[in-house]
């Protein structure tokens, strides 16, 4: 089995950690994994795109255009920016809370939030749009959007492993002081329909 998963967000949203957790969990499930992402300049509030290729030994580390099985968008405009990577039948999970770049506030470029959300709603793909900010409030911190989104992805069957598998990865790879909060975030994401 081969699954190509794309994560798109803004520097500081924890996209890279989310991709590491997906990759690590896939490895624990005996898959060969490749990942790649933008590091460096892009971290300073720029766009971040992480590629996770599960079961991809004889492949490049980047997903070709139109080949991603699913995309997790941490920010609506960034999800739309990366739409070209998604397969026509690829699944789409997007947080709808925009991060307005300072360039938009300065009048350099516009951020038509409604147009962007509409675009996602009307995409040919099966789409799940969530209010990540609200779910983060339930989880108790604005910094756990990445794990909340993973919880939703697991619940919706977008990734080939269980909540317990991801929890195991979190416990084995995150610092002790961050485990309780992130476990809680995973639960909130998993039960997102209740909130």
């Amino acid at each position: 089995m081969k699954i190509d998963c794309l994560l798109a967000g803004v520097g500081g949203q924890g996209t890279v950690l989310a991709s590491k957790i997906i990759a690590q969990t896939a490895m624990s499930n005996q898959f060969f994994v490749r990942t790649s992402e933008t590091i460096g300049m892009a971290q300073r509030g720029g766009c971040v795109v992480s590629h996770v290729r599960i079961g991809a030994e004889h492949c490049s580390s980047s997903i070709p255009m139109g080949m991603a099985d699913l995309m997790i968008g941490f920010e609506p405009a960034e999800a739309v920016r990366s739409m070209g990577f998604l397969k026509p039948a690829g699944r789409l999970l997007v947080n709808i809370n925009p991060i307005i770049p300072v360039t938009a506030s300065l009048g350099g470029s516009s951020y038509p939030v409604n147009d962007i959300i509409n675009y996602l709603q009307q995409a040919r793909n099966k789409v799940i749009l969530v209010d990540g900010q609200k779910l983060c409030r339930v989880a108790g911190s604005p910094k756990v959007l990445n794990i909340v989104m993973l919880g939703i992805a697991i619940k919706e069957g977008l990734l080939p492993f269980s909540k317990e598998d991801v929890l195991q990865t979190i416990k084995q790879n995150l610092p002790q002081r961050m485990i309780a909060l992130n476990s809680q975030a995973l639960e909130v994401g998993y039960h997102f329909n209740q909130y």
Partner: protein
Amino acid sequence: MNTKLLMGNEAIAHGAIRAGVNVVSGYPGTPSTEVLETIARDKNRKIYVEWSVNEKVALEVAAGAAYAGARSLVTMKQVGLNVASDPLMSLAYIGVKGGMVVLVADDPGPISSQNEQDTRHFAQYAHLPIFDPSTPEEAYEMIIDAFTLSEKYGTPVLFRPTTQVCHACASVEMKADLYTNNIEGFVKDPKWVIFPRLSYQNHIKIVENEAKISEDFSASIYNRIIGNGTKGIVACGASFTDTMEVLDSINHDVKVMKISTPHPFPEGLALQFLEGLDEVLVIEELDPVVEENLLKLCGKMGLRISIKGKLTGDLAVAGKYSYEIVKNAIYQFLGRDMVSIEALVALPPLPIRPPVLCAGCPHRASFYSVKMAMKRSKEKAIFTGDIGCYTLGNAKPLDMVDTCLCMGAGITIAQGLQRAEPDSKQIAFIGDSTFFHTGIPGIINAVYNETDITVIILDNSTTAMTGHQPHPGTGKTMMGNIAEKISIENVLKGCGVSFIKKANPLQLEEAIEIVTAATNYKGISVVIFEAPCIAMSKPTHINHIKESCIGCKKCIKEIGCPAMSTNVDKVSIHPDLCYGCNLCIQICPVQAIGGDL
């Protein structure tokens, strides 16, 4: 079996540890930085690790260790090798005793570099062997062979991963066997002293060795021929995986040659590959190094084979090669029709999201205070920038970086500008780590030649851009020791600078006054702006917009802080991003910004 998810740079580091490396030096530079950092975290082995002051110093430290029989590794990015090229070119003649690997990470794109130079040229120029891994797991194995080859021929060896290998992660099978290198010690011998006679003899020797290493490389497991056909594709380094992914998706007879040791070129293997071929496509990022080698070989052997690539316009001469670029080139070469991907519905307009200085970054305040000082004095000023986070000061609304060339060049470009345009003010910006790297000779030059410039040192107590590495001014070393902090002020005094003032850039009015005094000073004047990088401190409080805000947006328009945004006419401060630097408070004309302490 112990399989781990490793980033390419981590895989290289673990490979070097497994090879028994004793001494590791380097200077931070994307995409190379994590190699040295990973080795420094290794608790089991007694490996000496240092961030050196610059790449020349680092390469010489590694060479000295290798003279004594240590296995040494030096790490840098591609432009760092320019700084280290003086010792490298001569070390190629002198050679080493212990295995020495010079890791130079290339950056096709470029993604975070000044240029797209190709280190494989350096290998040819210096007559040094070079490895070019295609994946993290290959790099893990390859670095060990690089050390072995270095000792076999007594030569430093170049190891050139590209960003696609450095920063990609893969499942890497970790091996338990560790090589232990016993350091014999330095043995005095005239061969370590470079003199013209010795250089002549060694020049002959290293060219002879190139022929032998070329034969070794023809038999290397990293180069191989796959498949059959009358059309051939040569795939180099990181382009190999893209090439194979494209070929795996189609059913077409084609002969592939993977090249991961481009110099000395494995001619024997290449001749075997060329046998029976009519046409060859060469897929390699950056410069047409392998393509030219094949052309030379065809010329030498009188082969009538068409070699296609960058020189024939079949592939782009610049930029990173994506899967799509590789696929297009292969389809065109094989005469296949492209299957068009179903087009997306036209995207709505998307906001531009360039990298910016972080909210609370003290550089923003430093740039703004200089901007204000120049605005008040109404003098023409040219702002020369340098390499680091603060290059981002060129973005609007700050717009305070007029030039940026290479490490340390801000101070010296300002001096040339001053000679050509003496009626303008020349103000150079440089960070603390860059100051130690190559800034100091420029300071001495300005003192010696009595050049009228102002230098602004942005001292945030770290090497921020590459991920917060320590440097001589921080008093911390990679071995965990607390060393004597080297004071920038004392260095400037020692260089003979007479106008030196320190200021906190976040105290805006005071900072503007000091900058004004510095620019009015005849001769070199230096302002050291001291304020730590926000990534190393916690926010003291968060600011918010009060009811009294008149919606003039002066705060946003003047400093462009990413924590601030506007929705229609209301300004708001994002509580997760604000660091409480208070710069906006000092700009608001109606005192409508305050903090919860």
